[in-house]
């Protein structure tokens, strides 16, 4: 198996930069389309979370599996989910990964190692643990990773899954994106612990806190957890401290978030930070940045056009595929 190094080379760093820019651009466009009434359903954006969304998922290798939530579209990009697939899904077209059955970001493709989430979170914490169990039983050196927000950590599934995964020493990495709010509810109304990662000690597994806006740290700490899991070291809980920079969903202006909080986190924008990192190392300049942004815009433009011109499913397909043959 081709395993990525802990210290990424230029090619990987530029890949990551492209994916961050792509994720941001897709979400910006989705926001515009939603506001313009062009999408049939809702949008759940992870803007501001690019570093952990892409950094953690990028630490997986081919054959590993990822269970994202509905806010984690960007986490699927390193797995090979394409902009066209993202827009087909949001436009509810027949050619989408869920054939028009699932909404906005509720897509996945097991062939590329991603699960299609449900709304009840973190329901895929146990599912990821089950995938990890399958790997362990078959002696496969594969790893499962599950994402959720800090809001999900109040739910029983979260604790049950981590506990069982610890007891069975499963190759699974649990990522919690602590973005400050569960819909409108701030963290201090969700939990008394200072950090979600503090809970790891209750399950006798490592609990790691990462700067959720620093993609190098997000990647490296997750990478260590992934390889520890792969080598039989069991699960890790990773808490990424970041900020949800838009509302819970497209309709939510998030007026409950004070403006100075947004201003503070704007200064910590993970893409700008990564650009500075790359620039300092001579890997990025105005010209190469322009080139990346150009490629991104082209991909998004192509994907939107492709989705808009793609057919809807036929109504009668509503009753298909309820059961497997």
């Amino acid at each position, binding site marked *: 198996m081709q395993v990525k190094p802990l210290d990424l080379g230029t090619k990987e760093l530029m890949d990551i930069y492209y994916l961050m820019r792509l994720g941001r651009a897709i979400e910006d466009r989705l926001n515009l389309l939603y506001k313009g009434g062009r999408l049939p359903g809702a949008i759940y954006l992870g803007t501001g979370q690019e570093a952990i969304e892409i950094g953690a998922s990028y630490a997986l290798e081919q054959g590993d599996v990822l269970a994202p939530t509905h806010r984690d579209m960007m986490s699927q990009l390193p797995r090979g989910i394409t902009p066209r697939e993202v827009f087909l899904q949001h436009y509810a077209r027949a050619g989408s*990964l869920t*054939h028009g059955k699932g909404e906005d970001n509720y897509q996945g493709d097991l062939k590329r190692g991603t699960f299609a989430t449900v709304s009840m979170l973190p329901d895929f914490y*146990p599912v990821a643990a089950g995938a990890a169990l399958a790997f362990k039983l078959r002696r496969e050196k594969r790893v499962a990773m599950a994402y959720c927000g800090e809001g999900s950590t109040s739910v029983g*599934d979260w604790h049950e899954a981590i506990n069982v995964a610890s007891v069975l020493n499963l190759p699974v990495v649990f990522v919690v994106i602590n973005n400050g709010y569960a819909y409108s509810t701030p963290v201090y109304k969700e939990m008394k612990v200072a950090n979600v990662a503090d809970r790891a000690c209750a399950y006798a597994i490592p609990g790691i806190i990462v700067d959720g806006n620093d993609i190098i740290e997000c990647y490296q700490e997750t990478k260590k957890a992934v390889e520890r899991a792969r080598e039989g070291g069991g699960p890790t809980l990773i808490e990424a401290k970041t900020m949800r920079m838009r509302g819970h969903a497209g309709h939510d202006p998030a007026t409950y978030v004070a403006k100075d909080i947004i201003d503070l986190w704007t200064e910590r924008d993970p893409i700008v930070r990564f650009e500075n990192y790359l620039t300092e190392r001579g890997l990025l300049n105005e010209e190469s940045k322009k080139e990346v942004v150009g490629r991104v815009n082209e991909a998004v433009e192509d994907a939107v056009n492709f989705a808009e011109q793609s057919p809807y499913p036929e109504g009668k397909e509503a009753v298909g595929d309820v059961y497997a043959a």
Partner: protein
Amino acid sequence: MSMQPNQSQDGQKETLFIDAISQALWEEMERDPGIFMMGEDIGPYGGAFKVTKGFIEHFGPERIIDMPIAEEAFTGMAVGAALMGMRPVIEYQYADFISCAWDQIVNVAAKYHYRTREAVPMVMRAPSGAGLRAGPFHSQSPEGWFAHVPGLKVVMPATPYDAKGLIKAAIRDNNPVIFFEHKYLYRRLKEQIPAEDYTVPIGKAKVQREGGDVTIVTYAAMLQTALEAANKAQEKGVSVEVVDLRTIYPLDKEIILNSVAKTGKVIMLYEDTKTLGIGAEVSAIIAEEAFESLDGPVLRVASPDAPIPYSPPLEDYYLPQVDDVMAAIDRLAAY
């Protein structure tokens, strides 16, 4: 209580309901290394009802996995393992505890294939049903809840033969299947069953007794009540046909409608609470599709809309009895 034993033939063996299930699980695990089990106390203890007694010694702790008390977790884990190509069989210690896993079953397992065309082959075993003086939390019949969820199959055998054949079919099915085992039958019902491998198709009901005057549609432990009532009615000159649904969903409409066409009179007998249950669905199907065949109202004999009580006189009052079925047969005689 026991079924009329079949004529003993070569290759047939008298088998308890519970042993039929154990044998099927054992044989399937021998056949397919992708099958493994998760549940509470299923390992060295052998399960609360001993269905998996001796399994861990034979198949090892990797395939017979004792779980912490975490129904949501191990149900979700079954989904994850199934999506990775395994065939998990999970045991809820009592069907009553299946409600603890409700979300994973209804939102994750049931809807995954619909959205992604990826199969979720998993079996959820759940000992259900009343009659054991076990009170409100160890006696329930939750099949109606799950029969209402598209994406799930719900199976509920009434005989050792069907229990063995249906759980094999469930394990080989590519969908999430909930397999309710009426625990009153576990050690009270036995019959001759074949030694060789066989399956019973999911979605097919069975006429357990032929008759011409009245049809009783039933399933699980109530089959015994129906057969007893049918014998009593015979003494009074009323010929009763008994249809055993065997699978609650997908429901075998054809066999029900064929019987209605023959008798024109139907009693729906079930242990679950009466309102909005399987009986309502069967009645509606008959009303929609066999109205012209009916000679009388479709009657439901079921448990009252109350939790299941503990005290013996309360539980006896609560559960449908042979006399209740006889009263329904008498009422239909007036038509």
